[in-house]
């Protein structure tokens, strides 16, 4: 077990140790602060390990060690371990850094919680980091699935952190059920893979139709976890959780796990062009649809949630177009600036004590640092040239231009315009314009909250330039090419921003806003899902419950009843009169004799 694997294992096991300590020693957890310190220490160690790994790792090398986990008949059926290669190292770094920033941010953000729930919060964070790292460094698809489900668990627990709120309770359960429904795909994929290759390795050579089957099933899981079109309804509701949680899980890391799975299982997806085609279309549709919905949200976190959906659509489309690195690069940059945006929103909400954009306005004077960092994030997301977003998004668009049809390309172009447009809207509504009542006595957040914002602002600015280094590590080709797409894209981005300034600068509502608002309220997808749950699932179970209690059980009661009833009715034969008894004796003897003779 060379040193690289031991560091990776450290990154995974230290957070687990921290979480277990907090669980096993309730007084430590209930004390609040010490638990937080322990978990942040664990994240620090993990981040240090990932940075060390980054420095030590030479490009292209893949080192994997596996410990047999389930051994049947001498052969290792399933094994767990660590796999260090370019993709996992970068992802590990991204996850650890964002997690560290969010945890530091939470120190201040959650300070008015009771010590025991404060402790619980950080324990769950440590557990999340462990799960995410397990997923990232997984050597085979089975461990990846394990991390996948554990991440789903921590998302359930963290969304429902304030479990006294009924809406939070509903949102957390909804999130878990939707992802669990989608994970069914993952399980079937694993089964199909196991039947074909008696193993869970993603480098397996499969026949095209098995590859299509496996990849299609995997993609179903990705649609669930990364909130793609039909299964995206749980993400906006997931905003019920504390904002740092939204920042970490529902922006940067967890929802990106789906994309990471496709990047990780690229050898399989390469063998299934049909699935890539589907991914391309689903990604594009999600991007456009989510962008439209983001435009009309009044809650700042919902805007960012739909924006995440839309950007994930981008990544999925990129992977659909066959370039794994494009998706991965956008995933990396998106993680940083979306986390920055969410934390910025968190700082604003903490100051204004409300999520609604209407309550905010003119915060630039009261909260300069937040405004600056939030601005950098917004511009990077919008794709303003020079910032990180521009490089990764345009590389995605460049891939599309080359390989996919023109319709997805145009859809994504429209999305980049809409993205710039709604981000402009947020900037203006929140920071520009006159000061709202609530904004009047808002004040800049403390240092603990601002430090992470600044730390995250750096990669939001500079990450774009690391494209080359990243590509070299993960063995893909990348070059900043100045063709038609980047020019058109950046023009659209700037146009979007200016449009937002013009429209929202003078306080007018977005054009054709009415249509979009009705679109959001009447979001048929959400209602179909709840309808399916309430009427189909609960309806069928009610029928099953009735049938079991009154038919299957009824039948058995009936059998019991008839036996006893027959006993009661037959009882009348015992008349009590002596003649009948004598008659029985004589007739009995007569019958026996008759039968004996006639035989």
């Amino acid at each position, binding site marked *: 077990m060379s040193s690289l694997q031991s560091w990776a294992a450290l990154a995974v096991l230290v957070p687990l140790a921290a979480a277990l300590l907090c669980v096993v020693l309730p007084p430590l957890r209930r004390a609040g602060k010490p638990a937080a310190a322990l978990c942040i220490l664990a994240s620090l160690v993990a981040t240090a390990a990932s940075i060390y790994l980054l420095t030590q790792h030479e490009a292209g090398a893949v080192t994997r060690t596996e410990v047999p986990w389930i051994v049947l008949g001498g052969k290792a059926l399933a094994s767990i371990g660590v796999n260090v290669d370019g993709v996992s190292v970068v992802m590990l770094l991204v996850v650890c850094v964002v997690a560290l920033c969010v945890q530091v941010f939470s120190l201040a953000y959650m300070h008015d919680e009771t010590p025991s729930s404060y402790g619980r919060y950080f324990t769950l964070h440590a557990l999340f980091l462990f799960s995410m790292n397990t997923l990232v460094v997984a050597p085979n698809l089975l461990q990846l699935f394990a991390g996948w489900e554990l991440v789903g668990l921590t998302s359930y627990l963290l969304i429902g952190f304030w479990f006294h709120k009924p809406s939070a309770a509903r949102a957390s359960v909804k999130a878990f059920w939707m992802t669990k429904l989608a994970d069914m795909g993952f399980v079937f994929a694993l089964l199909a893979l196991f039947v074909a290759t008696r193993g869970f390795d993603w480098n397996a050579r499969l026949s095209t139709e098995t590859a299509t089957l496996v990849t299609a099933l995997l993609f179903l899981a990705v649609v669930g976890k990364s909130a793609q079109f039909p299964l995206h309804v749980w993400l906006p509701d997931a905003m019920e959780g504390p904002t740092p949680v939204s920042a970490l899980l529902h922006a940067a890391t967890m929802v990106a796990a789906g994309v990471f799975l496709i990047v990780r299982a690229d050898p399989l997806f390469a063998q299934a062009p049909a699935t890539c085609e589907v991914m391309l279309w689903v990604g594009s549709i999600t991007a456009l649809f989510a962008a439209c919905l983001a435009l009309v949200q009044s809650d700042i976190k919902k805007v960012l949630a739909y924006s995440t959906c839309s950007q994930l659509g981008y990544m999925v489309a990129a992977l659909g177009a066959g370039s794994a690195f494009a998706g991965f690069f956008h995933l990396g940059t998106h993680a940083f600036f979306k986390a920055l945006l969410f934390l910025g929103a968190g700082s604003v909400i903490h100051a204004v004590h409300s999520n609604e954009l209407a309550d905010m306005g003119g915060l630039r004077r009261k909260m300069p640092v937040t405004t600056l960092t939030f601005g950098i994030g917004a511009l990077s997301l919008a794709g303003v040239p020079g910032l990180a977003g521009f490089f990764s998004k345009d590389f995605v668009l460049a891939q599309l231009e080359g390989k996919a049809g023109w319709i997805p390309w145009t859809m994504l172009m429209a999305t980049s315009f809409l993205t710039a447009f709604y981000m402009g809207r947020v900037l203006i509504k929140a920071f520009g314009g006159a000061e709202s009542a609530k904004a009047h006595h808002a004040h800049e957040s403390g240092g603990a909250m601002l430090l992470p914002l600044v730390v995250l602002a750096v990669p939001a600015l500079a990450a774009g330039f690391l494209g080359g280094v990243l590509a070299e590590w993960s063995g893909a080709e990348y070059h900043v090419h100045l063709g038609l797409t980047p020019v058109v894209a950046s023009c659209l981005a700037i146009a979007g921003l200016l449009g937002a300034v013009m429209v929202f600068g003078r306080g007018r509502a977005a054009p054709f806003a009415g249509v979009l608002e009705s679109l959001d309220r009447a979001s048929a997808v959400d209602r179909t899902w709840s309808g399916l749950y309430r009427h189909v699932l609960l309806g069928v179970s009610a029928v099953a419950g009735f049938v079991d209690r009154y038919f299957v059980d009824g039948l058995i009661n009936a059998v019991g009843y008839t036996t006893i009833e027959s*006993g009661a009715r037959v009882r009348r034969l015992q008349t009590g009169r002596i003649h009948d008894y004598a008659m*029985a004796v*004589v007739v*009995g003897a007569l019958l*026996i004799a008759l*039968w004996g003779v006639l035989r």
Partner: protein
Amino acid sequence: MSQWIQLFALEFAVVAIAALVLLWDAFAPRTGRAVGWITALLLGGVLAASFFVDGSGAAPHGVFVRDAWVVFHERLFLAAGILGVLGSIDWLAMRTPKRQAEYYALLLFSLAGMMLLAGARDWILLVVCFELMSMPLYVLCAYGKQDGPASEPKLAAEAGLKLFVTGAASSGLTLFGLALVVGMTGTSHIGPIVTGGPVGSGPAPLTIVGMLFVLAGFGFKVGAVPFHMWVPDTYQGAPTPFVAFLSVAPKAAGLATLAIVLLGGWSASSSVWLPALLVIAGASMVVGNFFALPQTDARRLLGYSGIAQIGYALLAIATQSRGGLAMTLFFVATYVFTNLGVFFVLHAAAEEGGGHTLARIAGLSKRSPWLGGALLVFLLSLAGIPFVAGFWAKLFVFMEAWNAGLVTLVVLGVALAVVGLYYYLTVARSTYMADGDRSTPVRTGFALGAAIVVCLFFVVGLGLWPKPLVEAANHAAAGIVSGR
């Protein structure tokens, strides 16, 4: 003379005790429990003696043969007799203080009849012993019940008459059947039916009718189905301590007779009687279990359960194998102790509760846990739940029956055992789950308590370690059916 003494030592002793008790009561009448205890102790002495004087041999002309089979039955009947006496001491002393001796004397006469019956190999001796066993039972059914307390319905005549009329009809049938059989075979020895008919195809129709009439006659005493109607009514009418004895000893004797006659004598011509026996066994199981389901009076319920148990015993006899007969003996032995125990506990609870219905004995286990526990053990043994003797008994019977190929009857028996468990559990439910209106503990007299403890000892002891009784049964069965 010494040969006679050796052969009939135990029977002489029993009759001697009866005579002693009668004379003692005639000349120095005394009330209280002395008479009962004397009888019980003397019987105990005889039982002990049976372990020392084990003479075997045959009376002249093979009329009576004393072998392991007889010794086994003698000990079984003596045990049942002792427990029967112990059980009735308290009741008699309370009910008919002045006329106790006759009860014990009649009981002992019936006991002597049974003991002789086991060894009879001649029709005359068999019939006479059979009647000697039956007569006292008719009387004891009505004993002390004609002038009981006002609350208790005076069912003396009814119980006695029902048993008497069916009994007399059966003995009429038996005698007439016997006349035909003895006439056709020309000998009074219980042996194989020599086919008198010229063509030698099989016994003449008249002999067949005779044989089946005799089978019907014995069916009555055992309480098998067509002849079972007297059982529930007599159990309800007769005094409960006596019913305990009535439900056990005569049935064991009846089964012994059936074994002697069917397996010992007529084993060659089984084609005549086997189908009838199988039908009777099956019918007894079905009727016994189904009629017991709705019963609310514990005595009637146990009556029907007795009929069902006899169905299983007849199934074991129908196997016609030595193992089958051995398991019949094992089954009968466990049934004796179980049923005695159940009735004694029921009697104690009813005396205190004021009635035999399940409602009156409700909450017994709360009032006196030991008594409730004992009743539970006995019910388990009847139902065939493990680690009490009944479990082994029932399973061995089914095993041997299956081994002999009676597959359908075993399946029927196993299924009906489930029905059986239902009504045994209704009794357990009333004692354990229902809460009766009384809270005072049930006071059993010392004698009744002793009897219950002895039964409990045997039922649990045999449940934990059945080996000795199984071996004794095998050894005894060899006397009748040689070979496997």
